[in-house]
């Protein structure tokens, strides 16, 4: 089922009964969640609870042991390598460590995802796409700089620009504000909101930063003991009497 065939209200990501273990350590046990079009969902949980494993399964970097994981109707674990590549054009991934290529300039970093899609984008449009993505994150003047010359916040923005360059429909954020000062973290959180509005993207955000969660989340999914422990808006969960939920908000 392609993106065009999906009804507007159908979830763009549909997960049921997802299981993933590393040896005897069961990280995900029957995890369920949906991501609806245009929605920002924050997955909240303790360190080591399997949040990053979840989004790596969604993008196909890890193979789940069991369960359905549908992205735009395609079951990711069963996709061929070519189909996985086609799916990844529609799904952007922002790495916790930014994962910018050290040996390349900012321009080359942004051009890299386009290499496999020259036909779709047209080689002559590459410069325009690079500049558009950089302008959207407010760093058009860094185009010829090396990643090592940039601050942590700037690197995060460049990584976000690289994620945006293929204009994905879904963005997976892996702890986008970790390691940033509170002011820069707030700027990044606001930028994520701007991107949601401008590109009409749906996002799954992995975060421990409750300010980022408050700013960006339309809905929160709490991943505790490997399954979806609670699901609701920031205000709903904040009002909860459950001790395990409250410890994130207190």
């Amino acid at each position: 089922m392609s993106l065009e065939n999906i009804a507007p209200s159908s979830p763009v990501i549909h997960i049921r009964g997802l299981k993933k273990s590393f040896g005897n350590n069961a990280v995900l046990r029957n995890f369920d969640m949906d991501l609806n079009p245009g929605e920002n969902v924050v997955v909240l949980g303790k360190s080591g609870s399997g949040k990053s494993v979840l989004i790596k399964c969604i993008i196909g970097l890890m193979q789940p042991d069991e369960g359905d994981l549908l992205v735009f109707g395609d079951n990711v674990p069963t996709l061929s390598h070519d189909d996985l590549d086609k799916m990844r054009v529609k799904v952007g991934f922002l790495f916790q460590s930014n994962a910018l290529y050290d040996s390349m300039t900012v321009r080359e970093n942004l051009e890299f995802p386009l290499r496999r899609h020259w036909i779709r984008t047209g080689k002559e449009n590459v410069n325009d796409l690079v500049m558009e993505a950089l302008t959207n994150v407010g760093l058009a003047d860094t185009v010829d700089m090396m990643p090592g010359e940039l601050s942590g916040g700037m690197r995060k923005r460049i990584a976000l620009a690289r994620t945006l360059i293929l204009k994905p429909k879904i963005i997976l954020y892996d702890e986008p504000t970790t390691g940033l000062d509170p002011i820069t973290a707030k700027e990044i959180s606001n930028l994520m909101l701007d991107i949601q509005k401008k590109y009409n993207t749906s996002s799954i955000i992995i975060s421990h930063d409750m300010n980022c969660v408050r700013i960006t989340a339309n809905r929160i999914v709490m991943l505790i003991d490997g399954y979806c422990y609670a699901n609701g808006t920031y205000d709903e969960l904040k009002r909860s009497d459950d001790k395990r939920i409250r410890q994130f908000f207190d």
Partner: protein
Amino acid sequence: MKSGFLYNLLTETADIYRFALRFFKEGFRPRYEFGELIRQCYYIGNKTLGLVGITGFIMGLVITIQSHPSMEAFGAESWLPSVVSVSLVREIVPVITALICAGKIGSGIGAELGSMKVTEQIDAMEVSGTNPFKYLVVTRVFATMLMIPLLVILSDTIGLYGAYLGVNMKQVVSFHLFTNQVFEKLTYADVMPSIIKSFFFGFAIGIIGCFKGYNTTNGTQGVGRAANSAVVAATFVVFLIDLMAAQIADILHIT
């Protein structure tokens, strides 16, 4: 005893074997990364050119100076150019060049891919639709396979010039006579096995460096370990290939 030295050695050998099989499976299938291959060839060749050249020159000079007294004692001074050239071309230059490359290129590849692995750059490449194995591993292994034989040929030439200077330190021999004496004894049977084994040296250095880097774990500590173990393993394998090449040449009477 699953943590024993022998167990670790055998499992790592099996892992490198599987990694090499993947290289052959993916290396000859499109899409080909020619741009990155050329970049790696330039980088690998350029990075070691000076060191390999100087080492070749010194080896040629030193071997000639040290062989001179023995040859003189047997009254065979006139054989010095041919004896030195055969030992340089057949054995000394290919092995020394490979060892330098194992140290410089092997550790460089191990550290580069290792740091890319721990900073999720390899995952980022995969997510952006580029096969990281093709882009990073296949290009580097082909580059070492192509460049090390070229470096050996260059080092042979410079080493022979060093030998010419070494001969002239004790007696006067014209360049023309020296060249005649060298090529009187030096045949294709000396040159070709040396070039062929250099391809295998290049393959071993490339594949081991890439394997160690590509499978790095444990953060920055793991990067250092990957670089270090790439050099140790590649050096050992270079000697192993050299031993096998000598045996094969002997069996095939290429001596």
